[in-house]
């Protein structure tokens, strides 16, 4: 029998946890994005050629929103699980009467919520610098939620795998951040030389940012269906990995 209240309680626990430290989890990424807007937006707007009527700041804001979603959806479950491991709470998590799928749903609900809160806050901050209309709200919602889910799953996998904070820092600094920065947050992939553009096409974040950017500006480097297909497939695959690790109790049970 499903334990709805238990699942909602774990979701609340995960959510209250990041809301209690909102300066780190909400304010800090928004301030970072504000700095990116100020520094990159104002200094690079002449250096990067734009297509049509879209200004560089209008181009940049969706990239920053996606960066906020990715980082925060990833960090929520990863840091929560690593902290739980340090505080001896993983045993409690394995003791409460929740199915593994319920644990997964609770963690993902909170990860997506945190990603969307930071994404929305970044959007609101961006509106102080630049005005823009939206081309497709369904595409914006699809891109935001699916990407938050993908990185929520990835964060959970990372949290389970990383037995120490160092390993999470390694993943964040040496894998996630390069992929985000090379994923087209600050420049259009089409502006790269062909070799680098080809290499970039193996980075899934490129399609995520491109899709969200289309939703806001109507500008995209890749076909919408292709991007949606890549993102959906990657999210389902990462979800299966996350569930399998949880269900097998990998590094959670002995």
């Amino acid at each position, binding site marked *: 029998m499903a334990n709805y209240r238990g699942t909602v309680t774990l979701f609340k626990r995960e959510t209250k946890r990041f809301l209690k430290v909102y300066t780190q989890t909400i304010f800090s990424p928004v301030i970072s994005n504000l700095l990116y807007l100020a520094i990159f937006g104002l200094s690079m707007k002449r250096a990067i050629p734009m297509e049509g009527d879209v200004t560089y700041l209008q181009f940049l804001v969706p990239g920053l929103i996606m960066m906020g979603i990715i980082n925060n959806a990833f960090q929520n479950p990863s840091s929560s699980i690593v902290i739980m491991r340090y505080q001896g709470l993983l045993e409690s998590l*394995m003791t409460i009467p929740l199915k593994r799928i319920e644990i997964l749903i609770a963690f993902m609900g909170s990860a997506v919520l945190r990603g969307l809160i930071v994404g929305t806050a970044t959007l609101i901050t961006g509106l102080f610098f630049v005005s823009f209309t939206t081309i497709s709200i369904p595409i914006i919602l699809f891109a935001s939620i699916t990407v938050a889910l993908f990185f929520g799953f990835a964060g959970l996998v990372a949290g389970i795998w990383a037995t120490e904070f160092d390993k999470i820092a390694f993943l964040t600094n040496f894998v996630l951040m390069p992929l985000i920065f090379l994923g087209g947050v600050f420049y259009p992939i089409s502006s790269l030389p062909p070799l680098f553009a080809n290499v970039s096409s193996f980075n899934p974040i490129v399609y995520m940012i491109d899709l969200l950017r289309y939703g806001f500006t109507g500008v995209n480097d890749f076909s919408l269906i292709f991007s949606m297909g890549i993102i959906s497939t990657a999210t389902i695959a990462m979800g299966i990995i996350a569930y399998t690790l949880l269900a097998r109790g990998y590094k959670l049970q*002995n």
Partner: protein
Amino acid sequence: MSAIKIENLHKTYASGVHALKGLSFEIKKGEFFALLGPNGSGKTTMINILAGPTIKTSGTVKIGGTDIEKDREKTKMILGVVPQEISFDSFFSVNEVLILQSGYYGIKNNQKYIDEILEKLNLQDKKHANTRALSGGMKRRLLVAKALVHKPKVLVLDEPTAGVDVELRHNLWHYMRKLNKEGLTILLTTHYLEEAESLCTRTAIIDKGELVALQKTKDLIQSMGNAKKLTLTFGKKVSKIPEALLPFDPKKQNDHEIILHFETQDINKILKALESIKYPIVDLDLQGKKLEDVFIELTYNRNGKL
């Protein structure tokens, strides 16, 4: 009906350590049951298999008649577990932790019962304190509170009184006795053997993953024989052991004390002998076998460690 039934339970860790070697026993509903064993004997492994953090290698475990493999969540609902390791959720206050814990078990609006538990465990004035701010003993009592919020049918206490002072330990046992009388089944592991002796009706002793004894606690102590030790303290210096005491293996402790050894059935002979001696007796101290003696005999002595 049994509250917990374990049959031929084996656990081999990835490291190759064979922690449980075919453990089998049953705890009946309403029992206050002691599980004793030296460090590394497999007690915590067994408890973690019951609770969830450890996966058994083979064997059967039933909680409240349900196999843990068939319906894990149902068996978890029946159990309340106080783990040996102190853990605390530093993001939340004591009250928040207990509200969350109630929610995991599907319970809403549990504040009244939470307040009652906090009072019984002397934590009411820490209700809104962050768990980080609690002392070691308080953290341990919070773990007891967490294990009780969903009114479990079976409570597993893995060394719950380590680091808890005498008065609070007393309160805790008073509360546990009350809950046991109300029908709660309790499985206790402890290193304070006098606690097990005074609280538990039956005792199991495990060593190196094997069951070495399982009996009523009183019978277990009696199985060591009815030997008694009587210390006599005299009001004046005793230069020579009185002749009447010689049949009772007397040992002169000092000028004023003599220790006698005898079996329970010889108690009348001892009393007569005491009447006949001329030295004034000012104090008597009678000691029987303790659970600790049984424990040492069945574990350390068995392994030739003492």
